[in-house]
């Protein structure tokens, strides 16, 4: 059986695909390249266990057929906060209806699903650290900046409604992931802060290197106990030099990830940024 990664040509998706292939899995990548890029998969492009499909995740019928030979789906396809703010209706279509179409196809074929959600669903919470069962405090719809969080919540609700009907679905709330190939602007802001020491206030309080995010995704894909669960995935310790950081939604309570998935992040910011620089140069060479 194969593993499907939607959005597999994107930032986190491409790292996940590399990892799955290294484990010897057969991987299918579905990406419409609206925000992803096949160049992100250059290092594995000719791998015999990899199938690349340039297609739209909203095509429910196509997905239904595709999932016949798939045991596990990592649903990562979606637009980020910036694009969602700029084109709300496009983002609703991809992030909400795209997820509904994946879930529908997974229901028909009884596939395990891991959905990549994000910390933005907590909004601007009043208490820290953030536990998975915390309330979401979101701004009014007259501010488009809140559209992204509303879409992610709706997608989570769609996943959970399938979980209630017996589908093994796990939702990971990823807290500010950085690393090579990140085009959200976070990684470049981090590197800029490291070199000129300015702008720390707007950086997130919790930062997760992409290989740690990939580890959590892989663990969630094999964890029976995590079915129907929402799990925070992020860095929960103080980061030296970043005491004045005030961006992001806050710091995750990570006990559930430790308990259910046996997951704890391993790469600290120093090492993560060093790896980002090295890998960035490596990618540029190829």
């Amino acid at each position, binding site marked *: 059986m194969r593993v499907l990664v939607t959005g597999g040509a994107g930032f986190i998706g491409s790292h996940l695909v590399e990892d799955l292939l290294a484990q010897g899995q057969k991987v299918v990548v579905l990406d419409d390249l609206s925000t992803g890029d096949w160049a992100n998969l250059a290092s594995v492009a000719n791998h015999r266990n990899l199938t690349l499909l340039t297609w739209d995740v909203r095509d429910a019928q196509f997905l239904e057929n595709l999932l016949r030979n798939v045991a596990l789906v990592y649903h990562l396809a979606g637009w980020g906060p910036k694009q969602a703010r700029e*084109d*709300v*209706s496009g983002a*609703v*279509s991809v992030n*909400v*209806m795209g997820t*509904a179409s994946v*879930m*529908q196809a997974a229901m028909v074929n009884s596939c395990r699903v891991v959905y990549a959600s994000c910390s933005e*669903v907590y*909004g*601007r919470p009043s208490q820290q650290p953030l536990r*998975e*069962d*915390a*309330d*979401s*405090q*979101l*701004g*009014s*719809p*007259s501010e*488009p900046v*809140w*559209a992204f969080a*509303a*879409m992610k*919540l*709706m997608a*989570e*609700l*769609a996943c*959970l*409604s*399938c979980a*209630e009907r017996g589908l093994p679905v796990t939702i990971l709330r990823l807290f500010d992931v950085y690393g090579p190939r990140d085009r959200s602007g976070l990684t470049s802001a981090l590197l800029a802060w490291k070199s000129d020491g300015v702008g720390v206030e707007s950086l997130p309080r919790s930062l997760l290197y992409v290989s740690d995010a990939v580890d959590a995704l892989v663990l969630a894909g094999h964890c029976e106990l995590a079915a129907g669960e*929402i799990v925070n995935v992020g860095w929960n310790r103080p980061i030296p030099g970043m005491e004045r950081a005030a961006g992001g939604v806050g710091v995750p309570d990570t006990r559930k990830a430790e308990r259910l998935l046996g997951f704890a992040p391993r790469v600290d910011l120093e090492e993560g940024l060093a790896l980002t620089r090295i890998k960035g140069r490596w990618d540029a060479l190829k």
Partner: protein
Amino acid sequence: MSRALITGGAGFVGSHLAEYLLSQGHEVAIIDDLSTGRLENIWHLRDNPRFHFAIDSISNEIVMDRLGSECDIIYHLAAAVGVEMIVHSPVHTIETNIMGTASVFRVANRYRRKVILTSTSEIYGKSDKVPFAEDDDRVLGPTTRSRWSYSTSKAVDEFLALAYWKERGLPIVIVRLFNTIGPRQTGRYGMVVPRFVGQALANKPITVYGDGTQSRCFADVRDVVRGIHGLAECAEAEGQVFNLGSTREISMSDLARLVISVTGSASEIVYVPYDQAYETGFEDMRRRVPDISKVKRFIGWEPQIPLEESLRAVAEDIRAHGGNSPSGLRTGDGPA
């Protein structure tokens, strides 16, 4: 005179809006797939030459395209409604409330038609602020409770509407309805007033969920449709969000007593814990009061019909039509 298209026009609010617009001399077309709307709600309008209806889904783009091309303004009311309905069917909520709305806006934009989007006080979630102003934060419980899927789906609808206004200049108005009552409302989807009145008329125990101190404000649907139309006709209201509802607060216990006195019923009041009425861990709001200063400032709207009169109208309707339901009043649908 204009030609209005009402989606969800066979529903409770939709049918009153159709009636009101016809009385104002407008031409009215409705589309309704009768999933929650009922033919009986509009049957009395069928001989009016200015009234047209299509029994179809708003996701049928061919039908919507024709209806959109033939109207001047779209009142988008079609939605999966009511708390009980939503708790039990979140996937249906996405299909009806988000995909349906997206398709309405695509058509509206194609023909550049103004859209009045009806939204809900559920938008504010479980926030304990009193009263709710339009720009207030939304506070939702954890997503493990499908309780919040109605609120979330309508928020996504609002983001869509405002994006069409900001990004493409499509004229839109968002109207957040608070508790609305009146003839033809059914108790089938957890609505409290028709349930209480139905129980009172049958001299059966009136079932109050929780301890009965939670309160709501009930506006008469005839006041509400007048407000919706007023906002639709107001050019300054475009791109804006409005609360529309009553500010007279009443606790569920007092409401039960008032229903008993208005109907002259012999019913007693029985309290049922939330856990028995809804799924375990159900979160209800203690109070839900709209700040209606904005709609007052824009169009001078205020509710006029007192609660007692609305309750009398509801009771009369249920006596005459059995709640307008072909199978008679269905008070037994909510857990008892």
